[in-house]
């Protein structure tokens, strides 16, 4: 288990003999089994560490890339109230990224390195953010559906086996609730507005529904990392379980909104006590993952430009700090 996933880290383990390693692994397994938390300075299998770095980095990247589609509408928000709300939400996304980058750093990686990998396209972010926000109603649909799906995914992560990740998720989940409710309220206002506003809200929901369902990842039988992550209690529920939970939550919420979900096969299944839903177009998901979504290039380019444009600010702050350290010495 410890030698296959991370060839680069393997030599570090050549030191302790196999018995010692087995003892460490047994202790780790026992802690996970007992629902205790793994903390940064505990011994952990290399593959566990690598899995967490991959997932947490992707999560952090998603938060900061996720600022873009919504920030697109800040200058065009229809009222000062909506503008203030949207700015607060986008600022929260930045904050969530920072919580998660900090938590990831406890695994022994540097933040600069994570950002470099994002900019080089070597670490991913959620594919949902590669879709464009075409109208104001998209801000509402993102809050209701995208943040709603995120919450469904993230609430179980508050009990994740890795302590710093779980603690970051507790903070994030508290704040996400505002995100979802503001989106729902925004859609409700549009849905109950003029015919054109109602149509705009419906159009946004039509475009965001399926990509939101894809946010839970591939079906269980096709999900590469699921089984191991569940054994490690990084993940607590399967992709399909969470997706089902989300569908069942959304159906009555859509009814109150007076909007429909764009799936002719969506209906209550009395026997299962859950909603059946249509087949997801996974070829679209794979295309977007491969970099061929509507906005992949634009999002990464924007991120790189923002980072480059911030260089002088970071340099100036560092120079100022150095000057004052000198003056005090």
């Amino acid at each position, binding site marked *: 288990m410890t030698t296959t996933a991370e060839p680069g880290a393997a030599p570090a383990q050549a030191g302790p003999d196999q018995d010692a390693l087995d003892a460490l692994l047994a202790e780790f397994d026992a802690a996970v089994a007992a629902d205790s938390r793994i903390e940064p300075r505990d011994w952990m299998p290399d593959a566990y560490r690598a899995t967490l770095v991959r997932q947490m980095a992707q999560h952090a990247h998603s938060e900061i890339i996720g600022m873009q589609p919504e920030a697109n509408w800040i200058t065009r928000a229809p009222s000062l109230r909506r503008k203030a709300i949207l700015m607060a939400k986008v600022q929260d996304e930045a904050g969530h990224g*920072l919580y998660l980058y900090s938590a990831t750093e406890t695994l022994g990686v540097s*933040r600069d390195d994570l950002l470099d990998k994002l900019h080089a396209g070597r670490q991913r972010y959620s594919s949902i953010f590669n879709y464009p926000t075409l109208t104001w109603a998209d801000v509402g649909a993102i809050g209701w559906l995208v943040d709603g799906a995120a919450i469904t995914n993230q609430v179980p992560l508050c009990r994740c086996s890795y302590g710093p990740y779980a603690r970051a998720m507790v903070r994030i989940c508290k704040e996400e609730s505002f995100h979802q409710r503001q989106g729902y309220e925004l859609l409700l206002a549009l849905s109950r507005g003029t015919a054109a506003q109602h149509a705009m809200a419906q159009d946004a929901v039509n475009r965001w529904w399926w990509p939101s369902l894809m946010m839970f990842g591939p079906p269980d039988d096709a999900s590469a990392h699921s089984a191991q992550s569940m054994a490690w209690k990084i993940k607590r529920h399967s992709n399909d379980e969470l997706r089902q939970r989300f569908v069942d939550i959304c159906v009555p919420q859509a009814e109150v909104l007076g909007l429909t979900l764009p799936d002719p096969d969506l209906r209550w299944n009395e026997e299962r006590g859950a909603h059946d839903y249509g087949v997801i177009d996974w070829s679209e998901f794979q295309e977007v993952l491969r970099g061929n979504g509507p906005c992949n290039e634009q999002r990464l380019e924007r991120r790189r430009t923002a980072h480059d444009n911030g260089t002088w600010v970071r340099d100036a702050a560092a120079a100022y*700090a150095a000057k004052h350290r000198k003056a005090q010495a």
Partner: protein
Amino acid sequence: MTEQAGEPAESATGGQWPLWEVFVRSRRGLSHSHAGSLHAPDAQMALRNARDLYTRRAEGVSIWVVPSAAVTASSPDEKDPFFEPAGDKAYRHPTFYEIPEGVKHL
């Protein structure tokens, strides 16, 4: 394996700003508790960033920032014999003592 704990990933000279640990007092009467960490070039910026990052919803009335490198931790892993001396001293707890029923205010 040993150096990743609570230590900054880079020194101030490594290009990346140093890491700071943030402690927030949520209201008067409570002690500061650890909220998380952040990068900043100096203490003043660390305080400002901490305010923006950890108190956006009035979660605090006071903030401490401490360079992560200045934290000395008890042991490389947290299951250390360091804490063993306390393990077998049950007599330090009030529940260790049997008191006849009916004795009040004890």
